[in-house]
Structures are given as structure tokens and as C-alpha cells.
């Protein structure tokens, strides 16, 4: 049972040791960090093995804060859901940290990198294991901090620090709603603990509006952390961080935390159908929006980032449609193949000396065969091609949409089409055809084993991860899936096929270019390239409100605090002083008169009064 605490605190210990002691020694720092997460992975496997024995796995919680009605503890929930996430986080995390040895080789800040990675691992595990809202929120924020530290890792670059701040601030907005939801729930139910809340909720007989509001407020946390519209703007900018960071945090784990949280408290959302509907539509809209933008992007990491956004939209939509199992399934498979795609992209980037523009790549199939194969597998998995894992998880979601909401099904299907289209485009432009930058191409070479090894690990998972509907079955062994005809499932394969066909025609050849697409779409293409100008709109909005707030604050500070307060005080004191001054005539006689008055008063009170 104490293995749970080991899993949680080993990375924290590593982070602390690195920060305090091993900053100079990069090798030692890396070893500490990788060791910690591998230990975690091992313990997670052990717990997984112990699952069948029927013993309760959750260790006893530690009482942390006890102030009157507020009781907060640090606990660990070990059930199938958290165990799944534990395996994903530690497994994929281990692979990525090992990969980082190759990618970040020679970087002067390597120790700091591994310290932040370990801190992140600790925070993410804290979210996974949390058994009450306060603990989850604390680690929620910690994860945001780790993300900020890692996005702005190359802090000499102004764009990196700006991106880090943008990520943190955007998350803050979502977290504000999240906190409000937590507090509102507490005010009704009196506790933060998940188990207690779940048991008390039916007895509270809250009205539908209140339940919906709480649900939506808590969803705000997901909107921020999992980058749903309208708080999605930070994720593409987060690509400023090193590619392994993008793989781990902004594809596989942190952004998935929002979905995990929703799955954790699905019992809270279930009795609020309105909230679920809103969640589904936001998820679907985000998926579509991100896919449209991805079609027009030229930076390979940005393409993958928008793809992540799109897939997160799928997961959120699934939750909104009542399919938390399907959402977790897709979360798991997405972690595998998206991490894989990012790692392969990193491999390409490093081979071409940190070139990220796809129009400067090309023909890399010849020079980097392993990377090529891995990227191909990842693409096919993402597009949902049988028999890879993505096919199973994505189809589950599509079928779920079909069952519940035809409109969302159409939207999801169209987004899947776009997905295969832009991935085919990226694949073709980067790996096929002729190299566009001869000089960089000549210097390119396949990545070392330390990088290709983890990629291989993820390839295996991407291929096999979906078989036997393992994940949903694992989460709820007793549940029976909805039955769908085989024909329907095969028919859904037509979507990625169509997408690849069109993208192949345009991009899988030597003279591939965006020109035909731009001609076809016209101004729409420009809007897609510019992310539909959302960043610009936000900038104007924020500047407007900020100016307003600043003007109000200035007014208050200048006129009220300084004018009335300070000025008023000084004026008052001066006035009083001047009045008292009048008494000081310098004339003895006047003083004698005042003395006489005083004597009269004193005599009155002492003799008569």
C-alpha cells in the first residue's frame, strides 16, 4: 500500500535533490529523475498486478488541515481509473524522459530540465491520486507551474517566456471558475472529499439549475487545463518549450488531466444534463476549430498542437455525451500515439538542427527510416485506421455521438476527415518528395537509440493499445458496450481513407505545395492560418478591459486614496493646526483668561458637579 506514496513522492524527492545538490552534474540529475519515474512505473505495475487480489489498495489519508468546518486531507485514491492514469503517466513519462537524454543533449540547463520534469511528474501524479477537491486543486496549480517552467525553459527567448506566462494566465482564468465550483459544492455539501460528496449528493436534493452551475464551473477547470475553446489559445504557444515537454505535458498527460478530472467526478455531472450538453458542444466545437486551423499551419509542432486540441475536444465531447469510459479510452490511446508523433517530430527537428518549418523539410524517408516508420504509425493511429489503437478509441466516440446527437456526429466525422487530411499533408511534405533545403538535408541523420528506443516503445503501444477494447473493459469490467453493426464500423473507415486520398493527391509528390488549397479556400485559408484571429481578438479585449480597470484604479488611487485620504488628512491636520494656532496669541492676558476658564470648569467639577 505504501507503494502509492513511493510513486507519488519519488519524483518530488528527485526534483528536490537535483535542485539542491546535483545542479552541476547533468548525468546525475538525469539519472535521479529517470530513476524516480521508473521506480514509479514499477510500483504502478505492481499495484496493477495486485488488482486482482481484491485487497483495498488505497492507503490511509493524512489529515492535513482541520479548521472548524473545513477538513482537508492528503489522500490517495487507487482504483481502476487512477491506476490506468498512473500507468500512462509513469510509462509514457519514463519513455519521454529517456528520450530527453538524446534530444536535450548538450543543453546547459539539463539539470534544471530534469528537476522540472520530476516536479511535473509529482504534480501530475498528485492530480491522479487526489481523493478530494482541495488536493486536486493544489496539484492542478502545481502542474500549471511545472508547465510554465518547462514552456519557458529556454528563457533567453522572449517568445518562450511570453508563452509560459500566457499558459499560466489562461489556466488561471479557468481555475477561477474551478475554484468557484469547488467552493459552491462545499457550501452545499460541507466536504471536499470525493467519496463523501458522491454519497451525499443525492441526499442534498439540489435543484437542476444549481447542479448545472456547479457542473459548469467545475468544467471551467477543464476548459483551462485541457485547452478547450475559448481558453485554448495557450496550447499552440506552448510549443515554445522543448519537444519532449510538448510530448509529455501538452499531449499525453497534463492536458488530459482535465478530462481525467471530469471522469473522476462524472457522478457530479450526470444529474445535470444541461451541463453535459454544454460540455459536449464545447468539446465538439473545439475539435472542429482546431482541425480547421491545423490544415493551414506550417510549423510541424503547431500542426501537432492543434491536433492535440482537436483530440482533446473529442474527449471532452465524449464526456458530455455521457461516455466517460470512451473518453478515457481515447485519452489513453491518444497519449500513446500523440507522444509518439511529438517524439518523431523532435527527432526530425534535431536532425535538421532545430528546423520546424515543414516547407524546409522533405524526402526524409531516405535519411531517417526509423523516424519515418514511427511517424507513419502515429499518423495512422491518429487518423483512426484499423487495426491501430486510435481506430478503436475514436470509433467508440463517433458511435457514441451517433447514438446521442446526430449533429455532433456529423461534426465529429468531418473533424476526423480533416484530421487525416492535415496529418497526411504533414507526412507527405516532411517525409516524401524531394528535400527542399539541400544543405540541411545533407546533414540529417537518424536519431540515436536513446531516442528511437522510446519511440519504438510507443509504437508498440499505439498499435496494440486498442485491442480487445482493453481500456473500457478494464475500467468497468461489468459494463456491456453498445452494439453496433460491423458494417457501420467498417463504413467509418471511409473517413480517414478519404482524407488520405485528398491529401495524398495534393502533397505526396515532389512538387507539393499549399497553392491549390489556398486557391480553393481563398480568404478562409488565410483565416485558418491566422488561427481565426482569436489571439488578436483576445489582445484587443484584454487591452480594453485592462485599460478600463487601470483607469478605474487610477481614479480611485489618485482622487480617493490620495485626494480624500492623504490630502484630506493633511488638510484636516493643517486646519486643526491653524485653528489651534489662533489660540497662541503670545499675549499673557489671553492665556490668563483661558486659565480662568479652565479654573472655573475644574472648580465646578470638583466642588459642585
Amino acid at each position, binding site marked *: 500500500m505504501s507503494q502509492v506514496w513511493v510513486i507519488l513522492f519519488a519524483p518530488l524527492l528527485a526534483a528536490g535533490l537535483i535542485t539542491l545538490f546535483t545542479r552541476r552534474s547533468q548525468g546525475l540529475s538525469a539519472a535521479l529523475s529517470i530513476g524516480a519515474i521508473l521506480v514509479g512505473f514499477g510500483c504502478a505495475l505492481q499495484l496493477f498486478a495486485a488488482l486482482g487480489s481484491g485487497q483495498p489498495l488505497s492507503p490511509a489519508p493524512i489529515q492535513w488541515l482541520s479548521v472548524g468546518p473545513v477538513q482537508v486531507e492528503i489522500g490517495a485514491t487507487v482504483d481502476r481509473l487512477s491506476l490506468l492514469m498512473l500507468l500512462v503517466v509513469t510509462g509514457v513519462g519514463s519513455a519521454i524522459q529517456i528520450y530527453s537524454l538524446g534530444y536535450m543533449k548538450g543543453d546547459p540547463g539539463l539539470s534544471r530540465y530534469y528537476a522540472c520534469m520530476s516536479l511535473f511528474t509529482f504534480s501530475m501524479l498528485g492530480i491522479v491520486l487526489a481523493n478530494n477537491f482541495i488536493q486536486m486543486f493544489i496539484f492542478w496549480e502545481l502542474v500549471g507551474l511545472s508547465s510554465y517552467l518547462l514552456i519557458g525553459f529556454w528563457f533567453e527567448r522572449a517568445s518562450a517566456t511570453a508563452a509560459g506566462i500566457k499558459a499560466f494566465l489562461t489556466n488561471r482564468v479557468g481555475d477561477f471558475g474551478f475554484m468557484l465550483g469547488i467552493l459552491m459544492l462545499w457550501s452545499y455539501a460541507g466536504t471536499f472529499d470525493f467519496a463523501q460528496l458522491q454519497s451525499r449528493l443525492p441526499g442534498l436534493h439540489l435543484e437542476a439549475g444549481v447542479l448545472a452551475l456547479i457542473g459548469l464551473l467545475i468544467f471551467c477547470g477543464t476548459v483551462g487545463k485541457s485547452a478547450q475553446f475559448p481558453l485554448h489559445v495557450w496550447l499552440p504557444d506552448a510549443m515554445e518549450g522543448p519537444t519532449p515537454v510538448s510530448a509529455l505535458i501538452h499531449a499525453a498527460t497534463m492536458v488530459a488531466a482535465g478530462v481525467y478530472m471530469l471522469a473522476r467526478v462524472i457522478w457530479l455531472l450526470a444529474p445535470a444534463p444541461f451541463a453535459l450538453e454544454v460540455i459536449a458542444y464545447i468539446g465538439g466545437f473545439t475539435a472542429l476549430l482546431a482541425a480547421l486551423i491545423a490544415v493551414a499551419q506550417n510549423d510541424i509542432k503547431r500542426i501537432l498542437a492543434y491536433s492535440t486540441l482537436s483530440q482533446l475536444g473529442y474527449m471532452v465531447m465524449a464526456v458530455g455525451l455521457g461516455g466517460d469510459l470512451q473518453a478515457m479510452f481515447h485519452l489513453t490511446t491518444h497519449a500513446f500515439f500523440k507522444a509518439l508523433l511529438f517524439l518523431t517530430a523532435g527527432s526530425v527537428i534535431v536532425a535538421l538542427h532545430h528546423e520546424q518549418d515543414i516547407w524546409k523539410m522533405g524526402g526524409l524517408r531516405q535519411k531517417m527510416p526509423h523516424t519515418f516508420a514511427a511517424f507513419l504509425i502515429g499518423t495512422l493511429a491518429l487518423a483512426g485506421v484499423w487495426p491501430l489503437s486510435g481506430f478503436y478509441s475514436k470509433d467508440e466516440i463517433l458511435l457514441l455521438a451517433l447514438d446521442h446527437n446526430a449533429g455532433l456526429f456529423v461534426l465529429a466525422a468531418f473533424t476526423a476527415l480533416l484530421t487525416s487530411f492535415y496529418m497526411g499533408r504533414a507526412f507527405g511534405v516532411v517525409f516524401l518528395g524531394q528535400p527542399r533545403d539541400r544543405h540541411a538535408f545533407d546533414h540529417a541523420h537518424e536519431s540515436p537509440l536513446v531516442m528511437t528506443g522510446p519511440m519504438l516503445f510507443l509504437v508498440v503501444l499505439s498499435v496494440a493499445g486498442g485491442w480487445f477494447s482493453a481500456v473500457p473493459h478494464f475500467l468497468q469490467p461489468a459494463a456491456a458496450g453498445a452494439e453496433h453493426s460491423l458494417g457501420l464500423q467498417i463504413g467509418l473507415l471511409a473517413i480517414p481513407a478519404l482524407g488520405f486520398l485528398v491529401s495524398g493527391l495534393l502533397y505526396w509528390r515532389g512538387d507539393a505545395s499549399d497553392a491549390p488549397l489556398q486557391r480553393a479556400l481563398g480568404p478562409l485559408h488565410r483565416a485558418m492560418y491566422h488561427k481565426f484571429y482569436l489571439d488578436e481578438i483576445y489582445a484587443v479585449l484584454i487591452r480594453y478591459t485592462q485599460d478600463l480597470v487601470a483607469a478605474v484604479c487610477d481614479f480611485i488611487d489618485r482622487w480617493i486614496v490620495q485626494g480624500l485620504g492623504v490630502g484630506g488628512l493633511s488638510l484636516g491636520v493643517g486646519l486643526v493646526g491653524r485653528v489651534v*494656532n489662533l489660540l*497662541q*496669541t*503670545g*499675549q*499673557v*492676558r489671553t492665556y*490668563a*483668561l483661558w*486659565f*480662568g476658564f479652565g*479654573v472655573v470648569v475644574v472648580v465646578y467639577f470638583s466642588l459642585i458637579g
Partner: protein
Amino acid sequence: MVGLDHYLLVSGLLFALGLVGVALRRSALVTLMCLEMTLNAANLAAVAFSHYLGRAEGQILVFFTIVIAAAEVAVGLAIFVALFRQKQTVSLDDLTSMRS
């Protein structure tokens, strides 16, 4: 029948007179004289108490008061002399260097 309260009343009136004089007169010397009046009023009250209550302390108080008052007058007048040398006046209206 004259009793203690009569003497006390007279003493009070004299004291009040002295106070009024201090407040009204412009010349420093006359002001000092009015102060002497007030002191005397207090002396009268003390002696009256001493007589009617049969205690010796009243007269002793007066004894000391007279002595001290004499010393005080001497010093005060010396101050006025010194002041006069500086300012050529003993009018209280002109002695306002303590004015703020």
C-alpha cells in the same frame, strides 16, 4: 453671626478679582500685583479654616506662602527689570515673542 463661609466667600471674591485683574491689565507690574491679590485670598481662606477648625496647619501654610510669595515677587521684578533693559517696555502687549 459671621462664620467660616463668609470668610470663604470673601476669599473667593478676592481671588476672582485677582484673576480678572491678571486678564485685564496691560502693565506687567500691575499684573504681578493682581497675582499677589490672589495669593492673599488663598491665605485668607487658609487662616479662616485654621481658626474655625482649630488646626494650626492653616497658619503654618500662610507663613510659608508669605515667604515664598516675597521671594517670587523679588525674582519677578528682577526679571521685569532685565526685560525692560532689553525692550524698553513692560507692556504685556509688546512682549509677544512667544507668539507662534
